[in-house]
Protein backbone atom coordinates (compact mmCIF):
# COMPACT_ATOMS: atom_id res chain seq x y z
CA UNK A 1 0.00 0.00 0.00
CA UNK A 2 2.75 2.43 0.95
CA UNK A 3 4.54 1.89 -2.39
CA UNK A 4 1.47 2.87 -4.33
CA UNK A 5 0.73 5.97 -2.31
CA UNK A 6 4.34 7.03 -2.06
CA UNK A 7 3.99 8.09 -5.64
CA UNK A 8 3.14 11.78 -5.49
CA UNK A 9 0.29 11.71 -8.02
CA UNK A 10 -1.41 8.76 -6.32
CA UNK A 11 -1.10 10.38 -2.92
CA UNK A 12 -2.60 13.63 -4.17
CA UNK A 13 -5.38 11.65 -5.84
CA UNK A 14 -6.09 9.81 -2.55
CA UNK A 15 -6.08 13.03 -0.57
CA UNK A 16 -8.43 14.72 -3.06
CA UNK A 17 -10.86 11.81 -2.97
CA UNK A 18 -10.89 11.77 0.86
CA UNK A 19 -11.53 15.52 1.02
CA UNK A 20 -14.18 15.38 -1.71
CA UNK A 21 -15.90 12.43 0.01
CA UNK A 22 -16.03 14.29 3.32
CA UNK A 23 -17.47 17.38 1.61
CA UNK A 24 -19.97 15.14 -0.18
CA UNK A 25 -21.16 13.52 3.07
CA UNK A 26 -21.52 16.88 4.80
CA UNK A 27 -23.27 18.29 1.74
CA UNK A 28 -25.76 15.40 1.63
CA UNK A 29 -26.54 15.60 5.34
CA UNK A 30 -26.78 19.37 5.81
CA UNK A 31 -27.25 21.07 2.45
CA UNK A 32 -29.77 18.94 0.59
CA UNK A 33 -33.47 19.68 1.08
CA UNK A 34 -35.77 17.37 3.01
CA UNK A 35 -38.46 15.93 0.72
CA UNK A 36 -41.80 16.09 2.66
CA UNK A 37 -42.92 12.46 2.23
CA UNK A 38 -39.54 10.83 2.45
CA UNK A 39 -37.49 12.76 5.03
CA UNK A 40 -34.12 11.14 5.73
CA UNK A 41 -34.80 8.15 3.50
CA UNK A 42 -34.50 10.38 0.46
CA UNK A 43 -30.88 11.21 1.33
CA UNK A 44 -29.88 7.71 0.33
CA UNK A 45 -30.67 8.68 -3.25
CA UNK A 46 -27.36 10.63 -3.32
CA UNK A 47 -25.48 7.40 -2.57
CA UNK A 48 -27.73 4.85 -4.28
CA UNK A 49 -27.81 6.37 -7.78
CA UNK A 50 -24.07 7.20 -7.98
CA UNK A 51 -23.30 3.63 -6.77
CA UNK A 52 -25.49 2.21 -9.54
CA UNK A 53 -23.83 4.49 -12.10
CA UNK A 54 -20.35 3.42 -11.01
CA UNK A 55 -21.40 -0.26 -10.95
CA UNK A 56 -22.71 -0.19 -14.51
CA UNK A 57 -19.72 1.89 -15.66
CA UNK A 58 -17.47 -0.73 -14.14
CA UNK A 59 -19.22 -3.56 -15.98
CA UNK A 60 -18.86 -1.58 -19.20
CA UNK A 61 -15.13 -1.41 -18.44
CA UNK A 62 -15.12 -5.20 -17.93
CA UNK A 63 -16.64 -5.65 -21.39
CA UNK A 64 -14.29 -3.19 -23.13
CA UNK A 65 -11.18 -4.69 -21.57
CA UNK A 66 -12.52 -8.19 -22.21
CA UNK A 67 -12.64 -7.38 -25.93
CA UNK A 68 -9.14 -5.89 -25.70
CA UNK A 69 -7.83 -8.99 -23.92
CA UNK A 70 -9.33 -11.33 -26.52
CA UNK A 71 -7.77 -9.27 -29.30
CA UNK A 72 -4.30 -8.92 -27.82
CA UNK A 73 -3.95 -11.73 -25.24
CA UNK A 74 -2.17 -9.16 -23.08
CA UNK A 75 -2.45 -9.90 -19.34
CA UNK A 76 -2.63 -6.24 -18.38
CA UNK A 77 -6.09 -5.97 -19.95
CA UNK A 78 -7.23 -9.01 -18.00
CA UNK A 79 -5.99 -7.34 -14.81
CA UNK A 80 -8.07 -4.26 -15.58
CA UNK A 81 -11.10 -6.46 -16.36
CA UNK A 82 -10.74 -8.35 -13.08
CA UNK A 83 -10.29 -5.16 -11.06
CA UNK A 84 -13.32 -3.55 -12.73
CA UNK A 85 -15.45 -6.67 -12.12
CA UNK A 86 -14.53 -6.70 -8.42
CA UNK A 87 -15.18 -3.01 -7.88
CA UNK A 88 -18.33 -3.09 -10.00
CA UNK A 89 -19.69 -5.93 -7.90
CA UNK A 90 -18.83 -4.04 -4.71
CA UNK A 91 -20.86 -1.05 -5.91
CA UNK A 92 -23.68 -3.30 -7.11
CA UNK A 93 -23.81 -4.83 -3.63
CA UNK A 94 -24.04 -1.28 -2.27
CA UNK A 95 -26.97 -0.61 -4.63
CA UNK A 96 -28.70 -3.78 -3.45
CA UNK A 97 -28.20 -2.78 0.18
CA UNK A 98 -29.14 0.91 -0.10
CA UNK A 99 -32.18 0.18 -2.32
CA UNK A 100 -34.07 -1.84 0.33
CA UNK A 101 -33.00 0.65 3.06
CA UNK A 102 -34.78 3.37 1.04
CA UNK A 103 -37.68 1.10 0.06
CA UNK A 104 -38.60 -0.12 3.56
CA UNK A 105 -40.07 3.20 4.81
CA UNK A 106 -41.25 4.37 1.36
CA UNK A 107 -42.80 1.24 -0.13
CA UNK A 108 -43.46 -0.46 3.20
CA UNK A 109 -41.35 -3.46 2.19
CA UNK A 110 -37.71 -3.91 1.28
CA UNK A 111 -38.17 -5.72 -2.03
CA UNK A 112 -40.76 -5.67 -4.77
CA UNK A 113 -40.88 -6.84 -8.36
CA UNK A 114 -39.25 -3.91 -10.06
CA UNK A 115 -37.17 -3.99 -13.25
CA UNK A 116 -34.15 -2.05 -12.08
CA UNK A 117 -33.93 -3.94 -8.80
CA UNK A 118 -34.26 -7.33 -10.47
CA UNK A 119 -31.86 -6.43 -13.30
CA UNK A 120 -29.27 -5.36 -10.74
CA UNK A 121 -29.75 -8.55 -8.74
CA UNK A 122 -29.46 -10.76 -11.85
CA UNK A 123 -26.32 -8.92 -12.94
CA UNK A 124 -24.91 -9.27 -9.43
CA UNK A 125 -25.56 -13.04 -9.54
CA UNK A 126 -23.89 -13.33 -12.96
CA UNK A 127 -20.79 -11.65 -11.57
CA UNK A 128 -20.79 -13.93 -8.52
CA UNK A 129 -20.62 -16.72 -11.13
CA UNK A 130 -17.79 -14.80 -12.84
CA UNK A 131 -15.72 -14.83 -9.65
CA UNK A 132 -16.54 -18.48 -8.98
CA UNK A 133 -15.33 -19.31 -12.47
CA UNK A 134 -12.06 -17.54 -11.81
CA UNK A 135 -11.76 -19.17 -8.39
CA UNK A 136 -12.52 -22.71 -9.57
CA UNK A 137 -9.50 -22.38 -11.76
CA UNK A 138 -8.48 -24.62 -14.56
CA UNK A 139 -5.86 -23.71 -17.11
CA UNK A 140 -5.01 -20.06 -16.40
CA UNK A 141 -4.97 -18.66 -19.95
CA UNK A 142 -8.23 -20.41 -20.80
CA UNK A 143 -9.86 -19.16 -17.61
CA UNK A 144 -8.88 -15.58 -18.49
CA UNK A 145 -10.36 -15.95 -21.98
CA UNK A 146 -13.56 -17.41 -20.51
CA UNK A 147 -13.76 -14.53 -18.05
CA UNK A 148 -13.37 -12.03 -20.90
CA UNK A 149 -16.13 -13.73 -22.89
CA UNK A 150 -18.41 -13.84 -19.85
CA UNK A 151 -17.78 -10.13 -19.22
CA UNK A 152 -18.84 -9.36 -22.79
CA UNK A 153 -21.91 -11.63 -22.72
CA UNK A 154 -23.04 -10.28 -19.34
CA UNK A 155 -22.95 -6.67 -20.46
CA UNK A 156 -24.72 -7.45 -23.74
CA UNK A 157 -27.41 -9.04 -21.58
CA UNK A 158 -28.00 -5.94 -19.43
CA UNK A 159 -30.57 -4.28 -21.76
CA UNK A 160 -32.19 -7.66 -22.48
CA UNK A 161 -32.65 -8.46 -18.80
CA UNK A 162 -33.88 -4.92 -18.11
CA UNK A 163 -36.46 -4.97 -20.88
CA UNK A 164 -37.68 -8.46 -20.00
CA UNK A 165 -38.38 -7.45 -16.43
CA UNK A 166 -39.88 -4.11 -17.45
CA UNK A 167 -42.29 -5.67 -19.92
CA UNK A 168 -43.32 -8.39 -17.52
CA UNK A 169 -45.23 -6.44 -14.90
CA UNK A 170 -45.59 -2.81 -15.99
CA UNK A 171 -48.45 -2.27 -13.56
CA UNK A 172 -46.27 -2.69 -10.47
CA UNK A 173 -43.29 -0.58 -11.37
CA UNK A 174 -42.77 1.56 -8.32
CA UNK A 175 -39.25 2.71 -8.96
CA UNK A 176 -39.26 6.51 -8.97
CA UNK A 177 -38.99 7.72 -12.56
CA UNK A 178 -36.91 10.78 -11.75
CA UNK A 179 -36.18 13.22 -14.56
CA UNK A 180 -32.97 14.68 -13.19
CA UNK A 181 -32.81 17.64 -15.58
CA UNK A 182 -36.13 18.91 -14.21
CA UNK A 183 -35.05 18.78 -10.56
CA UNK A 184 -34.45 22.05 -8.67
CA UNK A 185 -30.82 23.10 -8.40
CA UNK A 186 -30.67 22.36 -4.63
CA UNK A 187 -31.22 18.68 -5.49
CA UNK A 188 -29.48 18.56 -8.87
CA UNK A 189 -26.18 20.20 -7.80
CA UNK A 190 -25.46 17.92 -4.80
CA UNK A 191 -26.52 14.93 -6.88
CA UNK A 192 -24.08 15.80 -9.69
CA UNK A 193 -21.37 16.50 -7.14
CA UNK A 194 -21.99 13.09 -5.52
CA UNK A 195 -21.86 11.46 -8.95
CA UNK A 196 -18.52 13.14 -9.59
CA UNK A 197 -17.09 12.10 -6.20
CA UNK A 198 -18.19 8.48 -6.67
CA UNK A 199 -16.63 8.42 -10.13
CA UNK A 200 -13.35 9.78 -8.73
CA UNK A 201 -13.50 7.21 -5.92
CA UNK A 202 -14.05 4.51 -8.53
CA UNK A 203 -10.99 5.56 -10.54
CA UNK A 204 -8.86 5.61 -7.40
CA UNK A 205 -10.11 2.16 -6.36
CA UNK A 206 -9.56 0.63 -9.77
CA UNK A 207 -6.04 2.06 -10.04
CA UNK A 208 -5.16 0.68 -6.64
CA UNK A 209 -6.75 -2.69 -7.29
CA UNK A 210 -4.87 -3.08 -10.58
CA UNK A 211 -1.66 -2.32 -8.71
CA UNK A 212 -2.45 -5.00 -6.10
CA UNK A 213 -3.36 -7.57 -8.79
CA UNK A 214 -0.10 -6.89 -10.61
CA UNK A 215 1.79 -7.26 -7.34
CA UNK A 216 0.05 -10.58 -6.62
CA UNK A 217 0.89 -11.83 -10.10
CA UNK A 218 4.56 -10.93 -9.59
CA UNK A 219 4.61 -12.81 -6.28
CA UNK A 220 2.98 -15.86 -7.89
CA UNK A 221 5.54 -15.81 -10.70
CA UNK A 222 8.42 -15.69 -8.22
CA UNK A 223 7.12 -18.53 -6.03
Amino acid at each position, binding site marked *: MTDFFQKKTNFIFLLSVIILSLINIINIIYNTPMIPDQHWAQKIFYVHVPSAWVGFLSYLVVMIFGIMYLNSNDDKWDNVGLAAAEIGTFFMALVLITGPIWATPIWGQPWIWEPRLVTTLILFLIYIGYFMMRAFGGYLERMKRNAAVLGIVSFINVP*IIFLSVQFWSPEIQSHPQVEMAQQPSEILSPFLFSLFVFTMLYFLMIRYRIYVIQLNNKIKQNV
Partner: protein
Amino acid sequence: MFYLLLKKELFIELRSKELILSMIVFGIAIVLSFSFSSDLSRVVVQNYASGMFWITVLFVATLGVHRSFAYEKEFDAFSMLVTAPIDRGLIFLAKWISGFIYLTIMEILIIFPFFNFLMIDFPLNISVAVITTLFSNLAVMAVANLVSGIAMRSNLSEILLPILFFPLVSPVIIAATQISKGVMLNEPYAFWEIWVLFLGSTIIISGLAGYALFDYLVEE
Protein backbone atom coordinates in the same frame (compact mmCIF):
# COMPACT_ATOMS: atom_id res chain seq x y z
CA MET B 1 -19.10 -28.87 -42.70
CA PHE B 2 -21.97 -27.74 -40.46
CA TYR B 3 -24.04 -30.78 -41.50
CA LEU B 4 -21.13 -33.09 -40.72
CA LEU B 5 -20.78 -31.63 -37.24
CA LEU B 6 -24.52 -31.84 -36.70
CA LYS B 7 -24.51 -35.43 -37.93
CA LYS B 8 -21.71 -36.23 -35.47
CA GLU B 9 -23.72 -34.74 -32.59
CA LEU B 10 -26.84 -36.65 -33.54
CA PHE B 11 -25.02 -39.94 -34.23
CA ILE B 12 -23.32 -39.92 -30.83
CA GLU B 13 -26.72 -39.60 -29.21
CA LEU B 14 -28.35 -42.14 -31.51
CA ARG B 15 -25.79 -44.71 -30.41
CA SER B 16 -25.79 -44.08 -26.68
CA LYS B 17 -29.27 -42.54 -26.13
CA GLU B 18 -28.10 -41.51 -22.67
CA LEU B 19 -28.75 -37.79 -23.16
CA ILE B 20 -32.33 -38.08 -24.37
CA LEU B 21 -33.18 -40.79 -21.82
CA SER B 22 -31.79 -38.82 -18.90
CA MET B 23 -33.54 -35.65 -20.08
CA ILE B 24 -36.89 -37.41 -20.37
CA VAL B 25 -36.66 -39.21 -17.01
CA PHE B 26 -35.56 -35.99 -15.30
CA GLY B 27 -38.33 -34.04 -17.06
CA ILE B 28 -41.03 -36.47 -15.94
CA ALA B 29 -39.63 -36.47 -12.39
CA ILE B 30 -39.91 -32.67 -12.25
CA VAL B 31 -43.45 -32.72 -13.66
CA LEU B 32 -44.36 -35.31 -11.05
CA SER B 33 -42.93 -33.09 -8.30
CA PHE B 34 -44.99 -30.18 -9.59
CA SER B 35 -48.15 -32.27 -9.58
CA PHE B 36 -47.48 -33.31 -5.94
CA SER B 37 -46.83 -29.78 -4.84
CA SER B 38 -49.64 -27.99 -6.69
CA ASP B 39 -52.71 -29.30 -4.97
CA LEU B 40 -54.74 -26.35 -6.23
CA SER B 41 -57.81 -25.73 -8.31
CA ARG B 42 -57.55 -26.36 -12.06
CA VAL B 43 -58.01 -22.67 -12.81
CA VAL B 44 -55.07 -21.70 -10.62
CA VAL B 45 -52.83 -24.43 -12.06
CA GLN B 46 -53.84 -23.44 -15.60
CA ASN B 47 -52.50 -19.94 -14.86
CA TYR B 48 -49.19 -21.25 -13.51
CA ALA B 49 -48.79 -24.15 -15.95
CA SER B 50 -46.70 -22.22 -18.47
CA GLY B 51 -44.24 -21.19 -15.75
CA MET B 52 -44.01 -24.77 -14.49
CA PHE B 53 -43.41 -26.04 -18.00
CA TRP B 54 -40.54 -23.63 -18.67
CA ILE B 55 -38.96 -24.30 -15.28
CA THR B 56 -38.99 -27.98 -16.23
CA VAL B 57 -37.37 -27.07 -19.56
CA LEU B 58 -34.79 -24.95 -17.76
CA PHE B 59 -33.66 -27.83 -15.53
CA VAL B 60 -33.71 -30.37 -18.32
CA ALA B 61 -31.79 -28.05 -20.69
CA THR B 62 -29.10 -27.63 -18.03
CA LEU B 63 -28.73 -31.38 -17.75
CA GLY B 64 -28.74 -31.89 -21.51
CA VAL B 65 -26.31 -29.18 -22.44
CA HIS B 66 -23.86 -30.22 -19.74
CA ARG B 67 -23.86 -33.79 -20.99
CA SER B 68 -23.51 -32.62 -24.57
CA PHE B 69 -20.24 -30.86 -23.71
CA ALA B 70 -19.12 -33.53 -21.23
CA TYR B 71 -18.95 -36.03 -24.12
CA GLU B 72 -16.20 -33.92 -25.58
CA LYS B 73 -14.11 -34.08 -22.42
CA GLU B 74 -13.78 -37.83 -22.65
CA PHE B 75 -10.48 -38.82 -24.28
CA ASP B 76 -9.98 -35.07 -24.82
CA ALA B 77 -12.15 -35.25 -27.93
CA PHE B 78 -12.61 -31.51 -27.89
CA SER B 79 -8.90 -30.86 -28.47
CA MET B 80 -9.10 -33.04 -31.56
CA LEU B 81 -12.22 -31.29 -32.74
CA VAL B 82 -10.70 -27.82 -32.44
CA THR B 83 -7.52 -28.87 -34.26
CA ALA B 84 -9.63 -29.74 -37.32
CA PRO B 85 -9.40 -27.04 -40.02
CA ILE B 86 -12.96 -25.79 -39.60
CA ASP B 87 -14.66 -22.63 -38.51
CA ARG B 88 -15.07 -23.14 -34.77
CA GLY B 89 -18.25 -21.11 -34.72
CA LEU B 90 -19.81 -24.03 -36.62
CA ILE B 91 -19.16 -26.27 -33.61
CA PHE B 92 -21.32 -23.91 -31.59
CA LEU B 93 -24.04 -23.90 -34.26
CA ALA B 94 -24.03 -27.73 -34.46
CA LYS B 95 -24.31 -28.03 -30.67
CA TRP B 96 -27.07 -25.42 -30.64
CA ILE B 97 -29.17 -27.15 -33.28
CA SER B 98 -28.60 -30.65 -31.87
CA GLY B 99 -29.50 -29.37 -28.39
CA PHE B 100 -32.63 -27.82 -29.86
CA ILE B 101 -33.59 -31.18 -31.40
CA TYR B 102 -33.02 -33.09 -28.13
CA LEU B 103 -34.99 -30.54 -26.16
CA THR B 104 -37.88 -30.71 -28.62
CA ILE B 105 -37.94 -34.53 -28.48
CA MET B 106 -37.94 -34.37 -24.68
CA GLU B 107 -40.85 -31.90 -24.72
CA ILE B 108 -42.86 -34.07 -27.11
CA LEU B 109 -42.48 -36.98 -24.71
CA ILE B 110 -43.25 -35.13 -21.48
CA ILE B 111 -46.05 -32.93 -22.74
CA PHE B 112 -48.77 -35.59 -22.26
CA PRO B 113 -47.70 -36.50 -18.72
CA PHE B 114 -47.42 -32.77 -18.00
CA PHE B 115 -51.03 -31.98 -18.94
CA ASN B 116 -52.36 -35.20 -17.44
CA PHE B 117 -50.53 -35.05 -14.11
CA LEU B 118 -51.48 -31.42 -13.59
CA MET B 119 -55.00 -32.15 -14.85
CA ILE B 120 -55.16 -29.13 -17.13
CA ASP B 121 -56.56 -28.69 -20.63
CA PHE B 122 -54.48 -28.60 -23.79
CA PRO B 123 -54.34 -25.19 -25.49
CA LEU B 124 -57.06 -24.70 -28.08
CA ASN B 125 -54.67 -23.57 -30.78
CA ILE B 126 -52.19 -26.46 -30.91
CA SER B 127 -50.28 -25.27 -34.00
CA VAL B 128 -49.53 -21.85 -32.44
CA ALA B 129 -48.47 -23.58 -29.22
CA VAL B 130 -46.07 -25.83 -31.16
CA ILE B 131 -44.54 -23.00 -33.21
CA THR B 132 -44.02 -20.70 -30.22
CA THR B 133 -42.54 -23.53 -28.14
CA LEU B 134 -40.06 -24.38 -30.90
CA PHE B 135 -39.13 -20.72 -31.12
CA SER B 136 -38.56 -20.56 -27.36
CA ASN B 137 -36.51 -23.78 -27.46
CA LEU B 138 -34.19 -22.17 -29.98
CA ALA B 139 -33.62 -19.22 -27.65
CA VAL B 140 -33.09 -21.40 -24.55
CA MET B 141 -30.54 -23.59 -26.32
CA ALA B 142 -28.69 -20.60 -27.82
CA VAL B 143 -28.01 -19.21 -24.35
CA ALA B 144 -27.43 -22.68 -22.86
CA ASN B 145 -24.74 -23.59 -25.38
CA LEU B 146 -23.04 -20.23 -25.08
CA VAL B 147 -22.84 -20.55 -21.29
CA SER B 148 -21.85 -24.20 -21.48
CA GLY B 149 -19.02 -23.21 -23.81
CA ILE B 150 -17.80 -20.79 -21.14
CA ALA B 151 -18.14 -23.24 -18.26
CA MET B 152 -17.22 -26.54 -19.88
CA ARG B 153 -13.48 -26.66 -19.40
CA SER B 154 -13.21 -25.06 -16.01
CA ASN B 155 -12.90 -27.25 -12.94
CA LEU B 156 -16.30 -28.00 -11.41
CA SER B 157 -18.10 -27.12 -14.66
CA GLU B 158 -21.19 -29.00 -13.45
CA ILE B 159 -21.59 -26.47 -10.62
CA LEU B 160 -20.62 -23.46 -12.65
CA LEU B 161 -23.03 -24.16 -15.52
CA PRO B 162 -26.32 -23.64 -13.60
CA ILE B 163 -24.84 -20.73 -11.63
CA LEU B 164 -24.09 -18.87 -14.86
CA PHE B 165 -26.93 -20.24 -16.95
CA PHE B 166 -29.92 -19.49 -14.70
CA PRO B 167 -29.43 -15.72 -14.41
CA LEU B 168 -28.38 -15.34 -18.06
CA VAL B 169 -31.36 -17.29 -19.36
CA SER B 170 -33.90 -15.57 -17.09
CA PRO B 171 -35.11 -13.12 -19.82
CA VAL B 172 -35.73 -16.06 -22.17
CA ILE B 173 -37.68 -17.96 -19.52
CA ILE B 174 -39.75 -14.85 -18.73
CA ALA B 175 -40.54 -14.35 -22.43
CA ALA B 176 -41.30 -18.05 -23.07
CA THR B 177 -43.59 -18.17 -20.02
CA GLN B 178 -45.49 -15.09 -21.17
CA ILE B 179 -45.93 -16.47 -24.68
CA SER B 180 -47.09 -19.88 -23.46
CA LYS B 181 -49.46 -18.24 -20.98
CA GLY B 182 -50.96 -16.19 -23.79
CA VAL B 183 -51.41 -19.30 -25.92
CA MET B 184 -52.82 -21.37 -23.04
CA LEU B 185 -55.37 -18.70 -22.14
CA ASN B 186 -56.14 -18.15 -25.83
CA GLU B 187 -55.23 -14.48 -25.72
CA PRO B 188 -54.90 -12.56 -29.01
CA TYR B 189 -51.42 -12.39 -30.59
CA ALA B 190 -51.15 -8.63 -29.94
CA PHE B 191 -51.05 -9.37 -26.19
CA TRP B 192 -47.82 -11.37 -26.41
CA GLU B 193 -46.33 -10.10 -29.67
CA ILE B 194 -43.68 -8.10 -27.77
CA TRP B 195 -42.36 -11.34 -26.23
CA VAL B 196 -42.04 -13.02 -29.62
CA LEU B 197 -40.00 -10.05 -30.88
CA PHE B 198 -38.02 -10.17 -27.67
CA LEU B 199 -37.20 -13.87 -28.11
CA GLY B 200 -36.28 -13.21 -31.74
CA SER B 201 -33.74 -10.59 -30.71
CA THR B 202 -32.34 -12.88 -28.00
CA ILE B 203 -31.89 -15.67 -30.56
CA ILE B 204 -30.04 -13.31 -32.92
CA ILE B 205 -27.84 -11.76 -30.22
CA SER B 206 -26.99 -15.04 -28.46
CA GLY B 207 -26.51 -16.85 -31.77
CA LEU B 208 -24.15 -14.20 -33.10
CA ALA B 209 -22.31 -13.88 -29.78
CA GLY B 210 -21.92 -17.67 -29.60
CA TYR B 211 -20.74 -17.92 -33.20
CA ALA B 212 -18.23 -15.07 -32.81
CA LEU B 213 -16.94 -15.84 -29.31
CA PHE B 214 -16.83 -19.64 -29.43
CA ASP B 215 -13.52 -19.37 -31.25
CA TYR B 216 -11.93 -17.86 -28.13
CA LEU B 217 -13.59 -20.32 -25.77
CA VAL B 218 -12.19 -23.41 -27.45
CA GLU B 219 -8.73 -22.00 -28.13
CA GLU B 220 -6.02 -24.20 -26.60
